[in-house]
Structure formats: structure tokens, C-alpha cells
């Protein structure tokens, strides 16, 4: 939190050297800010938004039990409105009329892996589905129609050009899948049934990587589950058709936040004539 505060002050008080910052009291910092704002009144609204955010953060840091969820999102919304929406009227004006994203992204619901952060997706760029362990169930009209609806909308209506399924490290859903006992007994209402969509990944990892630790097996399963989901995408006729026509490309990815890495790989297939009689 303190780091963020200092950065903000550096933004406002550009004349100061970074080394001087640490020894200043907050009164001196506020005096410097007041002086800057009296010289440059147009910075007033920017400063107000930033100060509001800092105040909320410091309040939360000072007394974690006093977390006010409404205050938190209110601050976030006004920051977005002033720093993004109002500064990009052309972009947001265009987006108000419609969206034309190039990506359909499947990412985990995990709070640490939002693709808007790690890949900096801007509004309008990615139609995004988030669920436990970023899974795509196979084509089935009655069950899991939510995922089918998202794929159908993205491919047939929005005509996205890329589908990317992003797995990640320390995925609770994958760990849950790997922890389901061999006799198949489950203790949850819905979670274990959902993650069993990628049971083929678990089978593969257990048979090929049995010598690895549970945690290493989970890491491999995170990536193999992405592959299972990519394969399941091809069971949707409209996906298959677009892939064959080369208007759609499927990609797998894995975000490792333990080591700060990001892998991307292709799902390729070719139609190779083997016989022409």
C-alpha cells in the first residue's frame, strides 16, 4: 500500500528526486501537492480521484475488519470513469454501439488470474467466460447450456477469430479433480461433478506421471485439462466448421503466477489427403 502512495506522489510532484521522497512527512507531501494543484488547476479532478482511492486503501489497511465492500467498488468505478471512460470518448462511444472482439477467452474464476490484468485486455477486445478451472464441457444440448450459449454467441454472432483457454498454477478446481477418490465418491453438490469434465486429463497424468509429487501432477493436469477443453471445443459443430474454414484458431495457455510465466500453444490439425482414387 505504501509503495502505491509514493508512486502517486511521484506522479504529481515530478520536480522531486525519488531519493527525497522517503524522508518527507505526509504534511510536506500534501503541501507540495497543494502547490502543484494551485499552479495547475486542471489536475484537480485527477488528484481527487487518486486521493480518494488512496484514502480507501489506507482505511482498509488500517483496519481490515472495517472493509466496506460498497465503498471499495464505488472508488473503483469512479476511478474507471475519470481515468478511462472520460479520457477515451471515441473508444467508448464506438463500444456503446456494439462489440466486435477478436477473442473468446476461457479463464478460471480464480481471483488472481483475470486476463484483463495479465494480458491487459481492454474493453471490447475479449468476450470472456470464467468458470471453475476454465473448463469447456463437450457438446451436449441439455446439460451445461451456459458454456454452449457463450461459444455459440461468440462464434456465430460475434464471429471471434480466436478461442483461447487459459489454465493457471495452483488451480483449486484441478486440485479438486486430482483429489477425487478412485472410487468416485464425491462430497460436494456441484463442484466435483463439474471438474470431472476433465477427468481424461487426470487419467493421463496419473498414468504417465505417477512418479511425480501430487503438486507436480496437479501442474501437469492444469495443462492437460486445457488440452481436453480444446478437444471438447471441437465437438461443437459451429466451432469445427470455423476451424476447418480457417476463420477460427484455437489456442491453449497456462499462466504460472508462482514463477511469473505465460505459455501459449496451438491446436493444429491438417487435412492431409492419404488416398485419391
Amino acid at each position, binding site marked *: 500500500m505504501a509503495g502505491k502512495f509514493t508512486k502517486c506522489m511521484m506522479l504529481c510532484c515530478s520536480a522531486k528526486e525519488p531519493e527525497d521522497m522517503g524522508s518527507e512527512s505526509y504534511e510536506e507531501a500534501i503541501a507540495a501537492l497543494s502547490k502543484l494543484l494551485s499552479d495547475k488547476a486542471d489536475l484537480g479532478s485527477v488528484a481527487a480521484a487518486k486521493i480518494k482511492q488512496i484514502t480507501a486503501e489506507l482505511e482498509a489497511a488500517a483496519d481490515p475488519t472495517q472493509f466496506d465492500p460498497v465503498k471499495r467498488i464505488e472508488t473503483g468505478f469512479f476511478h474507471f470513469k475519470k481515468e478511462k471512460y472520460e479520457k477515451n470518448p471515441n473508444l467508448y462511444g464506438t463500444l456503446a454501439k456494439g462489440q466486435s472482439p477478436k477473442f473468446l477467452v476461457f479463464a478460471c474464476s480464480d481471483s488472481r488470474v483475470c486476463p*484483463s490484468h495479465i494480458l491487459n485486455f481492454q474493453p471490447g477486445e475479449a468476450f*470472456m467466460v470464467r468458470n471453475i478451472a476454465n473448463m469447456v464441457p463437450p457438446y451436449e444440448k441439455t446439460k451445461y447450456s451456459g458454456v454452449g450459449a457463450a461459444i455459440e454467441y461468440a462464434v456465430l454472432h460475434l464471429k471471434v477469430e480466436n478461442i483461447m483457454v487459459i489454465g493457471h498454477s495452483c488451480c483449486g478446481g484441478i486440485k479438486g479433480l486430482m483429489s477425487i477418490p478412485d472410487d468416485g465418491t464425491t462430497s460436494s453438490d456441484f463442484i466435483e461433478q463439474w471438474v470431472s469434465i476433465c477427468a481424461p486429463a487426470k487419467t493421463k497424468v496419473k498414468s504417465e506421471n505417477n512418479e511425480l509429487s501430487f503438486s507436480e501432477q496437479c501442474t501437469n493436469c492444469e495443462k492437460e485439462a486445457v488440452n481436453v477443453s480444446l478437444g471438447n471445443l471441437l465437438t461443437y459443430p459451429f466451432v469445427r466448421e470455423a476451424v476447418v474454414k480457417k476463420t477460427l484458431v484455437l489456442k491453449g495457455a497456462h499462466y504460472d503466477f508462482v514463477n511469473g510465466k505465460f505459455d501459449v500453444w496451438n491446436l493444429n490439425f491438417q487435412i492431409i489427403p492419404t488416398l485419391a482414387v
Partner: protein
Amino acid sequence: MVNPFPGKWFRSKAMRMNDVDDIQSGPSSSPKIIRRPPVSSSEASSKSLGLQEFTGSKVQNVNNSGERLDLFDELKRRFLSFKKHKYLEELEHFQTLKEAQSPKFMVIACADSRVCPSTILGFRPGEAFMIRNVANLVPPVESGPSETNAALEFAVKTLEVENILIIGHSCCGGIQTLMSMRDNGDSSFIKSWVTNGKIAKLRTEAAANHLNFDQQCRICEKESINHSLLNLLTYPWIKDRVRKGLLFVHGGYYDFLNCTFEKWTLDFKGSSVEERGRSLVRDQELWC
């Protein structure tokens, strides 16, 4: 015929986004650190992924693999920028997150590319467990297993979030489909899914039949949020926690035509949150 997916082959072909930088740095022993300009949200400094091409008509199909490579080059650049300017700068925070996540929010939002809650409400890594589906719908418990209720179960029982926030938005394609569909037998995934909001459609038509279609859609977008909020309470482990004051359930509506955000909290009095068919809400606010 689709070739079977050779998982092992792809492992060796995987492009590791960090390695490419090292390869390009030359023969010196320490990799040259290429300073990239900080990624800001304005389109001027970051190459937007084809947004300038949008003129209201559908984007042309890209058969040019070169252009697609550009797209992924851009993603690589963005990840490396995130890593340098956020991940490494806030390493302590990310180390804590590595161990476990303890978000205070569970957010259910639409998959629409324009309404990511991380952007519009400024959620940072670790703050919000997020479900995104078409039209931010929550089916009731009796509809059986779904991706939405699996995530609900995890967020409420395992992560023990304190707040659930359902966020709807203006010009929602899913709600538009719901409002314009007729029971003519032809089915699609979208129609099957948005039928979860059917009661919201009936309420809208009953109350707002005199308004034009667009206006009715705006009303249905909000009715649907309320209906989904009530559906949350069909899950006993949610209702129980709400009753005990351990979990709060909120609705939110993002209007991107005017850039306003409306929020309200479901008021749980005794055993019912509905009175004469209307949801009891409190702390209603409009931010504009």
C-alpha cells in the same frame, strides 16, 4: 478427420513468453532488459487488438496468419509489461497470493467484452472471484448442475466470500435474445440458457408493455438481476449464510451509454425477501 490431439508434441512447441525475450537479447551473459513503455489504458500507447477496425459492421475474417501472429505478439508484449510493471513491482503481494486467495467478493458478470468488472470496478488480483456467463444469469438450484452453481459452491463454502455481487449491463445481447424470442420450437444453446431469465421477461412485459423494445430491454436487464439474486437464495448454503449475516448479496447495473453504475443490496428480513412480488432492497445508490 481431426488428428488426435498429441499433447506431448505441443509441449515442445510451446512458446514460453519469457524465453523469447532472452533469445533476442544476444550473446551476452545477462539478458538485455528491453524497457517497454508502461501499458496504459489509453489506446494511444498500447496497440489495440483491432478496435480501430470496428466501424459498426462485422470485422472481416482474417485468413492472414501474419496478422494473427501480430495479435499474439501483442499479447506477449502485454504479458511482459504486466510482469515488469505490476507482478515484479508488487512481488510481495503476489507472493502472498501464491499461497492462497481470500477474495472478499464473488462477482457474477456478463461475458460481454465491454463489461469486465476488473476494468469498470477496479478489482485487483486477489479481490474478486469471478463468474462470467451470457447475461450474468444464476439458475436456481432445481435446474441441476451448471458451471455457475459449481463456482457458487466453491466461492461460498470453500473461499467463504462475504459478498456476492451480480452485475448486469446495458445493451445486453443475451437479454435482447430473451426479450425477442418466441416459443416457436427452434432451439439454440443461447435460447436454452437465457430461458433462465424467463420470469424477468414476463415481469417486464407485464409492467412495461407500453414502452418500446429497447426500453423494455433496459428494464428486463435489471429485472433479470433481481431474479438471479432471488435464485441465489434457492441454494440452502447461501440462504443460511445470508440469514446469519455472514454473506451479503448485492445487485449492480452498469450503463455504458451514460457511464453510470447503480447498486443495491438485497434486504433479508426474516424468511422472505419478497413482498407482493417485489424484491426488498436497501442502500440503493446511483453513481454517475
